[in-house]
């Protein structure tokens, strides 16, 4: 169990008084929807970057601002679009000049609950994560962070805000602190399933109820996508090889090679290296082909699925697990054929569809959309 989660649990269980968290991070500036534990949310906000309404407003503006790319065509929202579940509906991300990445854009919804960011978990915080795409040549394309800072400093409409909030000229750390603050309020909840758990038996369909029973039973989804007080986003925050990368030919050979190389630098130049997943970040053989367990709230909005977008629909995903993933030398030992019936597969999909946030927890609620011209010029 990750230590952060141990700590979170300790707080939930009352071992560590919550007031410590209150004193350090401050409460959420917006009411959190049903299904999102406020104490856990607070705990996951780093004390050095408390979420304030001003920072959220600035972060929101930056998030939707295409000037934050080398050619002025790509903003964070290009690939993490509120209209598309804060993802992009493409198999893999497309950055400046139509350049394609190698991985499916993960949603930022409820990313506050991720203990690691990126599919391989190479960033430990949303702040660190936000620095990555800005200088990735196939995403926003700046050569370095100084170029990003120069663009923001040159924009007259930002100057006053950075001064007011951070008391200085824009820096890269302040830019990503603001973006991360906006992302931390992009939580969704009040899903039909949350209302069901709260006692409204009719909130989800009969099929979804069967799916929920299967979730923790025959289909074993809860092994990794557990739902509970400390895992409200249905992720164990770990990394697993379920064989998605092994759909590509020669993965087994690449994986064997990765495990035996003395100097992993020699693998860095292999175009398929990215398919080694978590191994890229840790260089530990057990992480070969393992990718982060994504959270599943609003999952119905974020097709296609898997780190490479290789499964088009939720039913395709269920079928992939049903056959026991894709065999490869590092396949996780929990991935076995499930022998689900067609009805059971539909039930699982119905359950996942009941996880979409609504009302005050909807991903399409106004405060998560691009600021209007009026808001933007504040």
């Amino acid at each position, binding site marked *: 169990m990750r*230590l952060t989660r141990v*700590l979170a649990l300790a707080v939930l269980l009352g071992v560590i008084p919550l007031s410590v968290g209150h004193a350090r991070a401050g409460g959420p500036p917006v009411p959190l929807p049903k299904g999102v534990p406020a104490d856990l949310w607070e705990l996951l906000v780093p*004390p050095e970057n408390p979420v304030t309404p001003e920072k959220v407003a600035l972060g929101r503006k930056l998030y939707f601002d295409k000037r934050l790319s080398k050619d002025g065509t790509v903003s964070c929202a290009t690939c993490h679009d509120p209209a598309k579940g804060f993802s992009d509906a493409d198999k893999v991300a497309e950055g400046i000049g139509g350049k394609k990445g190698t991985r499916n854009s993960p949603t930022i919804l409820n990313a506050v609950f991720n203990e690691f960011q990126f599919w391989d978990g190479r960033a430990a915080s949303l702040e660190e994560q936000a620095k990555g795409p800005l200088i990735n040549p196939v995403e926003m394309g700046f050569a370095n962070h100084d170029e990003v800072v120069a663009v923001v400093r040159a924009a007259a409409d930002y100057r006053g805000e950075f001064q007011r909030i951070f008391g200085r000229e824009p820096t890269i750390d302040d830019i990503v602190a603001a973006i991360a603050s906006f992302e931390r309020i992009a939580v969704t909840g009040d899903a039909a399933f949350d209302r069901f758990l709260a006692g409204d038996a009719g909130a989800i369909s009969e099929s979804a109820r069967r799916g929920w029973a299967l979730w923790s039973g025959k289909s074993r989804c809860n*092994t990794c996508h557990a739902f509970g007080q400390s895992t409200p986003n249905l992720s164990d925050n770990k990394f697993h090889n379920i064989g998605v990368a092994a759909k590509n030919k020669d993965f*087994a050979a690449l994986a064997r090679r990765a495990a035996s190389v003395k100097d992993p630098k020699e693998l860095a130049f292999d175009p398929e290296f990215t398919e080694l997943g978590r191994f*890229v970040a840790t260089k530990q053989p057990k992480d070969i082909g393992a990718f982060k367990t994504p959270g599943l709230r609003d999952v119905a909005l974020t097709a296609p699925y898997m780190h490479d977008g290789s499964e088009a629909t939720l039913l395709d995903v269920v079928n992939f697990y049903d056959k026991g993933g894709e065999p490869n030398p590092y396949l996780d*030992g929990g991935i076995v054929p499930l022998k689900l019936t067609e009805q059971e597969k539909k039930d699982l999909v119905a359950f996942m569809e009941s996880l979409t946030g609504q009302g005050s927890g909807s991903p399409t609620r106004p405060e998560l959309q691009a600021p209007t011209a009026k808001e933007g010029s504040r």
Partner: protein
Amino acid sequence: MKDRYERYLAEREAYFDRIRGLGRRDFLKASGLVAAAALATGKVLPHSFQPVDVVRADAPEKSFRFAYISDSHLYEKTLNERFVRAILKAVDDVNAMDPQPDFILYGGDLAQLGQPKELEEGAQILKALKAPVRMMVGEHDWYLDMGEEWRRHFGKDTYSFDHKGVHFVVLNSVIVEDYWTAPKMTPMERMKAMAQLDNPNGRPFTVGEAQRDWLKSDLTKVKPETPLVVFSHSPLYKIYKPWNFWTDDAEEVQKILAPFKTVTVLHGHTHQMLSNRIGNIHFHGMLSTAWPWPYAPQGLPKLTVRMNRADPFDEFDGCGDGSVDVFRSGRVDKSYNLWSRNPIRVSAEYLDSDGASARPPVETDVNY
């Protein structure tokens, strides 16, 4: 039992101390250090790699390598497919080794209940191995028909061979005193009694006088400076008698091996990482492909680096296969290829130094 419980309490206390003592920032630091360092450019720069298999400048000259697969406990696959999947995974692992091992030791307990179909299934699966296989028998292979079917497939249960200057001995260490004839047990009753881990009516494993005599005579033609590697299914020392993690005449066998300069014993049966040294003899356990046993409540050698308990949701965790590097000196480094975890190497230097140097890295992933 008391010492184990006390250790558990001490470990538990230390664990909670650690949690209390750390703030959230420290947690994030600890968990995110590698990730943080890797991010810098948004591209992946491989660095800070700690190879498990560290090649040191003063590393002894390697002579050859052999691999092992052990304790597969096969049922017919219509009854249990999981153990079949596991041995197939081990066969894949070994066949993928490059360069190929000189040979592969099969460490015993190929079958679960000595059934002809189980042994046949296992024999067929092992045929897929590219390198030659050396077989050893375990009690699960033996006690339905006292090894008749096993010997039909694989030949003698006690034998020796020479390879690149090393003398190898394979023993049948699962001989027990007859406790089935008097109560008129059927062969299947006998088999099932032997297949229990904790059989109150069982008898301790032995190598037995006949094999000890054979061993003495086999070793008369071997010079004391010739490296010796002995394979036994049960450990050739005493850990815990109620589970037969034990060989009752271990001391007598050790005495026969004592005159030789470098001796290594590799054993199965215990399904876990186990390291020991008694005088000049190094002992290494083998992993099972089927399941890991918990550590016995008593008798754990102090040189053993314990593996943590397995993740119950991961059928491969705590299982695996492995390999042995034999050096010109005759000493060996033993590698545990733990599935779902990082491989761990227990070196001759570690055992020779009585644990003072080259301590193997313990699993630091707090998930386990």
